[in-house]
């Protein structure tokens, strides 16, 4: 490939690619995102390639390993284009049949189709599935259909045209203006206006400036940044290059946690490709603008997602934050002006430049513009990644797109914003989701994790969970966080283990307010949120733990007991043989009982019993 040295070159290349692909009759998309990958989708890719090459069909039919399709609950997913026939839960032994019957024969294989749980109907096409119908996919549009490791696929979809437009017809100031008009706010959690940040960085003094991408994604339960970077790395990169042009940066960094190896690989690889094509490096597209970007792995500490800690860790120091009275846009990495944005924020930029800030601002609510990708996980039927316009009601996300709660259970709450956020209870299900409304409800947007909880979730246990997480992840630099959060954790553990007193509740609330006010960085300041929000909406559960020593969700071990139902037990002995503690007593064909003293409440007996004879009280 020769380097592109002008804007015209890029257009010509796009035409060439389209020409080259004319003879492709069908594309077989195989989702190779993290979810499907963990269910064996690489085997599918290999099998399709093998079958096609054996049959001598590789010229006309193309296997495309893509990033996350979004509908992870249905994985591994295979979609046949152009018809968009959607096959779910595909195993490698079906590949030959799919090629023969469906790809070549044009038939639809009924038993691989998605079944709508409400109507029982089988659905043939991707776009007809309710999960997709109510989404508004703009940022995440191509992630599940783009050939992850092929820059030409991205270019053929119009990729890098935003960069070409910015370089050929806009000054840096105009680019910034457009981003300001769009109303884009950072998707990393805080929601700071992106254009304003860029402008301060452009104005900051210094010859060397950095553009940086925060792909640390420390929020447990969120994986949209990972999927974007894995599935469409060029879109993120294009956003960064445009940002680099706007603020006047010459160097950039993508900071990815090492736990995301595929994201690391794809980012490195995209950078290499972009360099070969002259879209990155010296004199980009033949202009005066030059930018170099590196990938650095983080070592998986939550605090390293915080901007000052991230930069410290890049400098080879421990990831401790510092006070933010001096902004990183003025003194960041190596004390130079540094502009850090989240992965999803960067991925929005090419859209804004291509379609204009006003177009972008027409989507969303008054103060939250555009769309947001949520990772919808936990106790929900359609787990996956969901992109909706800001302001979409929670009910649409959970009921229409998410398909409700499995097992006929009731929806209880949704946790948003990770360890800095909180729980939104069932009665607020009509809440429109945007930065402001979530905050009013005592939660946060955060990076967009939505962990759905049903009746079988104990809210005190959820608070305990987040406090434990924060105790482990606190960097320990300041006392309110290091000691205070630990003390909060102890109080809640006492409650979960039946030692709680009314005084525990008072102390817990006092601590929440003290830590909020005095902690040094965002981790400590927001650490009380999971507690405050659960106290606000589920106080009765705390009180039941403290006064009655009861856990209504039957989660807190010391407050529950495993019991065998005498009417249902057939005395088959399966539970007795599996119980790791030998806590089950009984002889064959006679009713068994559990020795409460020995039982460690591991739940193995319930999983084992075929007659549903074991229950928790």
């Amino acid at each position, binding site marked *: 490939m020769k380097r592109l040295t002008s804007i015209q070159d890029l257009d010509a290349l796009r035409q060439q690619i389209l020409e080259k692909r004319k003879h492709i009759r069908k594309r077989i998309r195989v989702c190779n995102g*993290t*979810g499907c*990958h*963990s*269910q064996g989708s690489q085997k599918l890719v290999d099998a399709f390639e093998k079958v096609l090459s054996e049959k001598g069909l590789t010229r006309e039919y193309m296997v495309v390993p893509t990033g996350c399709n979004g509908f*992870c*609950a249905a*994985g591994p997913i295979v979609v046949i284009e152009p018809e968009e026939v959607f096959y779910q839960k595909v195993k490698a032994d079906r590949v030959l049949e799919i090629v023969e019957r469906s790809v070549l024969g044009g038939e639809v294989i009924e038993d691989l189709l998605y079944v709508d749980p409400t109507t029982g109907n089988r659905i043939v096409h991707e776009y007809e599935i309710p999960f997709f119908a109510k989404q508004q996919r703009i940022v995440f549009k191509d992630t599940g259909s783009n050939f992850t490791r092929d820059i030409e696929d991205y270019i053929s979809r119009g990729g890098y045209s935003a960069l070409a437009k910015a370089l050929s017809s806009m000054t840096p100031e105009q680019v910034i203006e457009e981003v300001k008009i769009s109303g884009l706010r950072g998707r990393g959690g805080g929601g700071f206006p992106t254009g304003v940040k860029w402008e301060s960085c452009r104005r900051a003094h210094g010859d060397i400036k950095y553009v940086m991408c925060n792909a640390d*994604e*420390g*929020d*447990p*339960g*969120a*994986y949209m940044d*990972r999927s974007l970077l894995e599935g469409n790395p060029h879109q993120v990169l294009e956003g960064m290059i445009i940002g680099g042009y706007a603020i006047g940066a010459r160097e950039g960094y993508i900071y990815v946690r*090492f*736990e*995301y*190896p595929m994201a690391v690989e794809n980012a490195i690889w995209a950078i290499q490709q972009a360099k070969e094509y002259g879209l990155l490096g010296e004199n980009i597209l033949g202009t005066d603008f030059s930018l170099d970007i590196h990938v*650095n*792995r*983080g*070592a*998986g*500490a*939550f605090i390293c997602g915080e901007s000052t800690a991230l930069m410290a*860790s*890049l*400098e*080879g*120091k*421990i*990831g401790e934050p510092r006070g933010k009275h001096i902004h990183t846009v003025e003194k960041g990495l190596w004390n130079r002006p540094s502009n850090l944005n989240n992965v999803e924020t960067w991925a929005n930029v090419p859209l804004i430049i291509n379609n204009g800030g006003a177009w972008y601002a027409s989507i969303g609510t008054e103060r939250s513009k555009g769309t947001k990708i949520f*990772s919808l*996980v*936990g*106790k929900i039927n359609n*787990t*996956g990644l969901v992109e909706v316009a800001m302001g979409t009601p929670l009910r649409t996300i959970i009921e229409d797109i998410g398909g409700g709660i499995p097992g006929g259970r009731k929806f209880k709450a949704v*946790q948003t914003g*990770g360890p800095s956020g909180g729980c939104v209870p069932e009665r607020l299900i009509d809440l429109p989701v945007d930065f402001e409304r979530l905050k009013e409800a005592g939660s946060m947007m955060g990076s967009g*994790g939505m*962990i759905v*909880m049903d009746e079988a*979730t104990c809210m005190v246990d*959820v608070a305990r*969970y*987040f406090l434990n*997480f924060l105790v*482990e992840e606190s*960097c320990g630099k300041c006392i309110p966080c290091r000691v205070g959060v630990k003390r909060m954790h102890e109080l809640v553990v006492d409650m979960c283990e039946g030692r709680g007193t009314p005084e525990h509740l008072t102390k817990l609330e006092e601590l929440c307010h003290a830590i909020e006010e005095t902690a040094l960085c965002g981790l400590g300041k927001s650490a009380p949120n999971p507690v405050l929000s659960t106290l606000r909406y589920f106080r009765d559960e705390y009180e039941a733990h403290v006064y009655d020593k009861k856990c209504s969700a039957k989660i807190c071990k010391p407050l529950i007991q495993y019991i065998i139902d005498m009417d249902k037990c057939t005395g088959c002995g399966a539970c007795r043989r599996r119980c*790791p*503690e030998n806590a089950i007593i009984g002889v064959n064909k006679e009713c068994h009982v559990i020795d409460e003293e020995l039982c*460690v409440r*591991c*739940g*193995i007996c319930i*999983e*084992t019993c075929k007659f549903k004879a074991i229950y928790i009280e």
Partner: protein
Amino acid sequence: MEQLLQDVDAVIDQWGAKPESLLQIMLDVNHKFNYLPKESLLRISERLRMPINQIYSVANFFKVFSLTPRGRTMVQVCTGTACHVKGAPKLIDRVRQDLGLEPGQTTEDLALTLETVNCVGACASAPVVVVNGETHSEITPNKMASLIKEIKAKSA
């Protein structure tokens, strides 16, 4: 020892002996030896001209780094929020019972190390367990038991 230092040097050369490479070098060395041998840290300190205490503080700060040898098989139970609400604590209980290990500990024969991680980004298939880099989805306590059995059989 010669070999070890040569390996460490190769990693350093790949990233360049500068402070911003520190974390990258340590991640690679930690991955290669499954822990950070003392000699490797001394070598890094020397070549990057960074005080050894800074290197040790970084090694202590991040959970991924180990200063003692770890097992041939790494079992990581995800304890992220999605995995937690779907039953991850029961999986850890199971390993605790079967092997007598707490998270962070290694079996005496260096066969297996148990660790917890906060979300590996496969939340849709929660709860997940990662065994030597390979993600297993929708694990139950019983499936966990068979996984451990398999690992034990392999390393015996």
